[in-house]
């Protein structure tokens, strides 16, 4: 599903794949490919990123740093962290449960279930927000009851959390399912034969085997949770300093002609994105290491 969803097979800088023998490429073809790649990625990725930082630093580093003094900006950062801290673990637990059920067992409707888990990924963020308005809004099913019990869901933190959970719903599960399917059930069976209980098998065998994929899913999930705009925008209420997450705060600052501050907060999100990429690369590297350990080695024979 999601980008880079195929962690366990992904070995981008494996030297052995560089073309030699039959795969040797004529140099001009190779360099055409490389330049098209660099050009395309440069145009679509590097330039926008550079634009964010250029705009943010337009009035100097002082003005840039000052943008983070604003209590509303700090509140937005705090809220974003809080939302991610709730949404990510919730989806983590779900992802483990779903992957266990789907990867380790055969049952009727498994394909449908897999598709339904993917669904939030393909649903427009606008709709993701809208459904919670329909459910919890004053005109919705539960709104009047909630309001009479003085519980705020929508236009408050719970609504933002729910919308965030919705949009990041499939991430962990989608990382785990293919890997756990590929690993099969033998190690778990071995543990059971050896007398391990259900939890022991899970904690001691299954979890260590998928920990890198799990972490990878969490990283992607977290990136999206912190960066979601559309869905959160619909349920937030945009109360400055209270229900604005960082992406919403960017929009607000932008609309206040405070471009430096807007791009400053945006650059913070961009830095988060880059940290995500670094973390992701690290996890890929670690997991590939553990995969490579599985390749047959030339250890001495019997």
């Amino acid at each position, binding site marked *: 599903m999601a980008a880079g969803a195929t962690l366990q097979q992904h070995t981008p800088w494996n030297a052995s794949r560089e073309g030699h023998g039959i795969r040797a490429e004529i140099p001009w073809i190779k360099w055409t490919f490389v330049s098209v790649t660099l050009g395309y990625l440069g145009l679509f990725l590097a330039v926008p990123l550079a634009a964010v930082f250029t705009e943010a630093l337009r009035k100097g580093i002082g003005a840039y740093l000052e943008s983070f003094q604003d209590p509303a900006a700090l509140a937005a950062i705090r809220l974003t962290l809080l939302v991610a801290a709730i949404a990510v673990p919730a989806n983590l637990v779900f992802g483990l449960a779903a992957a266990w059920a789907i990867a380790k067992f055969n049952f009727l409707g498994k394909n449908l279930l897999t598709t339904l888990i993917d669904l939030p990924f393909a649903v427009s963020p606008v709709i993701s927000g809208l459904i919670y308005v329909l459910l919890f809004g004053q005109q919705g099913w539960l709104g009047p009851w909630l309001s009479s019990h003085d519980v705020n869901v929508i236009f408050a933190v719970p609504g933002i959390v729910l919308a965030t959970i919705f949009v990041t719903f499939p991430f962990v599960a989608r990382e785990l399912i293919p890997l756990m399917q590929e690993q099969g059930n033998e190690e778990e*069976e071995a543990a059971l*034969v050896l*007398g391990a209980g259900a939890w022991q098998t899970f904690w001691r*065998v299954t979890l260590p085997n998928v920990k890198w994929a799990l972490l990878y899913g969490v990283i992607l999930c977290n990136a999206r949770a912190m960066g979601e705009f559309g869905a959160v925008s619909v349920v937030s209420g945009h109360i400055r300093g209270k229900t604005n997450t960082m992406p919403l705060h960017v929009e607000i600052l932008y609309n206040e002609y405070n471009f430096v501050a807007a791009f400053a907060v945006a650059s913070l999100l961009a830095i988060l994105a880059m940290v995500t990429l670094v973390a992701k690369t690290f996890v890929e590297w670690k997991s590939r290491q553990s995969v490579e350990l599985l390749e047959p080695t030339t250890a001495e024979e*019997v």
Partner: protein
Amino acid sequence: MSIELRSITKTFGSFTALRDVSLKIPDGELVALLGPSGSGKTTLLRIIAGLESFDLRPQSEILFQDRNVAGQCVGDRQVGFVFQHYALFRHLTVMENIAFGLRVRRSKDRPSRSAIRDKVRELLRLIQLEGLENRYPAQLSGGQRQRVALARALAIEPKVLLLDEPFGALDAKVRQGLRRWLRRLHDEIHVTSVFVTHDQEEALELADQVVVMNQGRIEQVGTPEDLFHRPANAFVMDFLGSVNLFHGRIEAGKAVFGSMVLDSPDGLEIDGESAKLFVRPHELELHTKPNGAPSLRARVVRIQSAGPLVKIELASESGQEVQLEMSHERFREEPVAVGNDVFVSPRDLRVFVADYSI
């Protein structure tokens, strides 16, 4: 501990993996489940272990030493299971792998740390991998992994040891060595053991008893000698070792295979029934002239004398390919060359009616 299976059937959807299988394995024996892939042997092994359920029918039972264990879950059956691909825990060292079964016990049953360490040491000695206890599975060769898997299974002191294609993933030389080692190990510890294999040589060499399976059924149970010399049916005959097959029919109480007419064995006197003659290559005699015995004319196509036996490839008068083996002495007595016309007569006869075809 003896194992007894009574009337076990297993279906996966519309596919029947086991049909009404019953089997008794005496205490302390080393038994092979032999059969082609898809014959149900691995399913049977997994059912014994409790890794697979079987179809619930009132007469179906699994007894360990006369105790029905059908309702018992896998962890409580005290079986040691060696998986085909070993299923070693890749994130644990050799030592941790072997100790796993002891460490996951409830605290009141769990041996002390030092007891576990001693046990692991002992097992490492048994599998001859002392000094490798801190390696990870990925850092071991195939044969080493195999032995670690075995040690891990033995650590819990199982009443029954089950091995799924234990040497399947190893190359020929390692396989030979491990096979003998396993036999010696079994003679030493004498735990009832069942292993699955599709390699008849392995089964015949290693096992006290061999269970030949085909299409979810047991075809024959017996000692290696029984099976080889007294195969119960065409399948067993064909499956154990190479064999020449001649097609013929029963005519006037005789089995007719081209120019060769044989006395029909008992119970095969129905005229017109098609018959099959199975003869192993070493059971065929070769003569340059007819000697009175029923024989087939054939022409020598190829002679391969590099090896313990001389292997001769012949083409019969109907064009069928016939394989023959003889000793070097016999070959020297009556030498033939490619292109010679010769006469071939079977020493041992096994004619089966046609309900099995190759």
